[in-house]
């Protein structure tokens, strides 16, 4: 079985390279334009698709945790501070890390007979529905990407805000845009994607608004 990775990063290979471990031998593709959101449905990370020997998708985009996050098993924090509220949301995000590696192994062994594989005629319907808003959001994100690439940050933000409004379920568009901003409080709050002037809300507000259970499409 082959494994390839694709990094969704506006900053391109410069942004990606520092996160690739030394000696890493799997292909690392760089999707600076977030094309795989539109074409494969990678609306968050980590997600994956399975591809069979014939080049057909055997399972459309799905959450692909290879291990259970230890954060999910922490005691429920009670505070109203940002970190406590974030941890409460993190615990509500569906985590299939305990089961997913075995699902991949099962498909590797049994191919289309695996209950985790999707029949070719059902793949399209099992992939992400794209309505007018989602289609337009992809176009807006691309226009923002173009402006960001030439250093027009405010121009990029205008298009990205529009993409976020149109397609709030695409975490890739939101998390990417937030990561390029700085909060007034400094580096720690940047890391937890606290609200910024550019976007008004941050990770916590958006997860609370849209529901942690929708963080990955099912």
């Amino acid at each position, binding site marked *: 079985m082959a494994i390839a*990775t694709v990094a969704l990063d506006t900053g391109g290979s410069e942004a990606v390279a520092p996160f690739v471990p030394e000696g890493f031998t799997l292909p690392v593709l760089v999707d600076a334009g977030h094309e795989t959101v539109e074409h494969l449905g990678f609306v968050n990370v980590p997600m994956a698709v399975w591809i069979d020997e014939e080049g057909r998708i055997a399972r459309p985009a799905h959450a692909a945790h290879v291990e259970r996050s230890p954060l999910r098993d922490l005691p429920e924090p009670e505070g109203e501070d940002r970190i406590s509220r974030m941890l409460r949301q993190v615990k509500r995000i569906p985590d299939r890390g305990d089961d997913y590696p075995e699902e991949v192994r099962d498909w590797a062994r049994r191919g289309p007979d695996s209950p985790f594989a999707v029949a070719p005629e059902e793949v399209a319907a099992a992939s992400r529905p794209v309505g007018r808003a989602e289609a337009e959001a992809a176009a807006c994100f691309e226009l923002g990407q173009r402006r960001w690439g030439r250093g027009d940050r405010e121009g990029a933000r205008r298009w990205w805000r529009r993409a976020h409004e149109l397609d709030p379920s695409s975490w890739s568009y939101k998390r990417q845009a937030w990561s390029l901003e700085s909060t007034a409080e400094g580096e720690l709050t940047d890391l937890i994607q606290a609200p910024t002037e550019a976007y008004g809300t941050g990770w916590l507000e958006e997860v609370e608004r849209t529901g942690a259970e929708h963080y990955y499409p099912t």
Partner: protein
Amino acid sequence: MLLEHLVVPVEDFEAGTGWHVQDRGLCRGDACVPLPAGAAEGGQVDVAMVAAAAGMALVEDEDDGVWALGSRAGGHALEGADLPDLVLPDLDGNPFRLSALHGRKALLVAWASW
């Protein structure tokens, strides 16, 4: 797909969108959309006509005179089981066709620095 002109060569349109101009219309995977006369002629695609016929999002950045063409509304991210033939650069900038993953089972995993 970004566009500086709304009339583009068929091969550019096909490479940028994954949709192919065929006799029966505009096709990708299992989906085919009929095209009106004049939408794709003489090796050129009239993007505005095609977008309207196929329900694709066409958004203009007026200050820049640039358009972005998004997906077809009313469908799904995938129009069939065939893997979209995307070409993405690897870390060294070399183009990598997803179709190079054919031949054995493959797991394509998305991640990010953010």
